């Protein structure tokens, strides 16, 4: 009886442990579920302000516009119908506030009771007009053609350049500049951190004697423990003004400042992972090389480094992943303007910084809110792929060392 009871408890304990063991997997799946279901809400929507319509003259062949085209028309960057696939030259832009320029107050009516009729007449008689006005005026008697706005698709989301999530009348959800900003900052950070990190890893693993190593290693590990907001603060107070003065810029918050701070933050990851990889080089291999008359340095770059190349690569990729996902330091140091950067001395905006800066102001369930979740999805996918790559590389390494 007692034995059966112990057996039963054992089973209960094992099941409990197993449930906790699968907890992380459940969380990852939940993250995917929540992020993607919120983010997916962005697609197949039109980013038009609620309750408004766009209309053109009935003779106009154009029947749909993309959000970007619409914005460019209203910003006077697109000036002719020809470039939109229609006929006729200059586009006449009309907003509901412009009505006073066409009709007298008397014609509109003191309570705007004739406003609808006025707009209708104006659109009907002006062939090259594009009008933007509240939906209530586009009733049955409306004599123009209401055109539709293209829906947001995954393609347009990724390839559009403009990110103006709260622009009126049409919000712009193009993340290309954000993606490029993120990649610029992260790659520049790694370009700066990888050689330095690798040199330090080689020094710690192969050259330094154990006393020096025992001092340097804990210090570098401490570097990893400092919160990112403190790095951001340091960057803001020290590195940003430094860059401003060195390059004589108007603002010091640039991609370069973010890259330097990110590079410093990525160093511990790169150093630790690469050093571990270098230390795994079998002693026999190194000794064989030395016995053949190679110098210590030749042994390092002809034996140790090639042997641990996959581990070093894993460290570099992991460093990039950290840099791409880093939020606070970048938010504080890069200036956050959503433009495609042409040099490191311009302000940029990254995906994590955008989420952090804007989510607080986005109305829950609105398009902006959903767009930020879609950004989160992009970030999640990028880091997920990076993690799987690292996993793949290191599992290959483990397999290789058994031979």
């Amino acid at each position, binding site marked *: 009886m007692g034995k059966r009871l112990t057996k039963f408890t054992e089973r209960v304990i094992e099941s409990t442990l*197993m449930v906790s063991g699968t907890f992380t*997997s459940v969380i990852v799946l939940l993250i995917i579920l929540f992020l993607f279901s919120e983010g997916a809400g962005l697609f197949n929507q039109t980013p038009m302000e609620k309750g408004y319509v766009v209309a053109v003259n009935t003779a106009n062949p154009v029947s749909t516009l993309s959000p970007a085209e619409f914005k460019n028309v209203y910003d006077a960057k697109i000036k002719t119908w020809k470039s939109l696939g229609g006929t006729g030259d200059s586009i006449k832009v009309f907003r509901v506030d412009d009505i006073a320029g066409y009709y007298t107050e008397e014609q509109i009516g003191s309570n705007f009771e004739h406003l609808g009729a006025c707009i209708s007449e104006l659109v009907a008689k002006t062939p090259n007009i594009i009008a933007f006005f509240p939906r209530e005026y586009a009733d049955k008697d409306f004599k123009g053609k209401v055109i539709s706005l293209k829906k947001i698709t995954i393609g347009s989301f990724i390839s559009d350049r403009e990110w103006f999530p709260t622009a009126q009348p049409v919000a712009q959800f193009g993340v290309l500049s954000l993606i490029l900003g993120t990649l610029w900052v992260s790659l520049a950070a790694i370009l700066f951190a990888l050689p330095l*990190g690798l040199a330090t890893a080689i020094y710690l693993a192969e050259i330094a004697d154990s006393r020096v190593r025992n001092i340097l290693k804990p210090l570098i590990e401490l570097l990893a*423990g400092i*919160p990112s907001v403190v790095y951001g603060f340091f960057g803001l107070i020290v590195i940003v003004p430094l860059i401003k003065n060195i390059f004589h810029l108007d603002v010091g918050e640039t991609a370069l400042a973010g890259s330097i701070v990110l590079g410093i933050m990525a160093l511990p990851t790169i*150093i630790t992972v690469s050093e571990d990889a270098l230390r795994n080089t079998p002693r026999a291999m190194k000794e064989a090389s030395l016995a053949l008359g190679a110098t210590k340095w030749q042994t390092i770059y002809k034996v140790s480094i090639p042997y641990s190349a996959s581990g070093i690569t894993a460290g570099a990729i992991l460093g990039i992943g950290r840099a791409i996902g880093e939020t*606070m330091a970048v938010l504080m140091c890069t200036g956050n303007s959503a433009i495609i950067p042409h040099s490191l001395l311009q302000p940029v905006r990254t995906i994590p910084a955008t989420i952090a800066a804007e989510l607080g102001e986005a109305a829950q369930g609105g398009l902006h809110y959903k767009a930020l979740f879609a950004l989160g999805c992009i970030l999640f996918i990028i880091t997920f792929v990076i993690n799987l790559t690292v996993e793949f590389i290191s599992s290959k390494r483990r397999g290789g060392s058994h031979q």
Partner: protein
Amino acid sequence: MKQPDHIQVRKRKQRSQAFAFVSFGVISFAIVAILIVILSFILYNGFRVISWDFITKMPEDGMTKGGIYPAIIGTLYLVAGSMLFAFPIGVMSGIYINEYAKDGFLKRFIQMMTNNLAGVPSIVFGLFGMSLFVNKLKFGDSILAGSLTLGLLALPVVIRTTEEALKAIDNSFRIGSLALGASKWQTTRRVVMPMAFPNVVTGLILSIGRVSGETAPILFTVAAYFLPKLPHSIFDKVMALPYHLYVISTSGTNIEASRGMAYGTALVLIMLVLIANLLANALRRYLGKKVKMN
């Protein structure tokens, strides 16, 4: 007199070796110097500001004067809450992976997912915490939602340290215990866990250091911009140190005037991490000795 070829070659080799070694050494020390510069910059400026009042008083005058007491308390609550959640689940999960799970698909999958969770950017945790805890489960911006979000972030760290700690224990102890007729759980609880305990606790303390400095996950789940009172329940908002530092160094009412407060806050944050590190090391040494003596 011309030297023989092989001597020249050897000399050249030695020169390039000396050059490489010296430059690597210089780079390594330069990196450590960067760290020391960052640390001493914040320590120096922070210690000029910090005082007993600074850590025990409410913020005043648009956060340009007074102290950071509510932010310290808020961070302590968040750390405690997240650990209450992450520590039991993380340790159990680590025990399952290392002691119970058989090699195979399930174990590989769980390890892969844990690694993936560790690589998820902290802002994504923030998004997830907001949509699940704040909105879906209707906790609102609260200590509960923030602690759970931070707990999820700390979970992979706790799991990994537990796993490593258990892996380090020689298999002969397990076999010996099982041979004496102990069950698997008895072996785990009475033999393996006590030996792994020092390293598990070290991991816990290190993850406390990490959690206390995280900003992105609490932005939308708990952090309050300015709240000069202490929370009464787990459904209240709180101020937190990292968010406070972010706010007063970027968007405070008067950034220049609150600079001193920012240095002080950064100092307190760094001290938390430093103390966690030192404590973890000391504890590992102390408990390690005790276990050996037993």
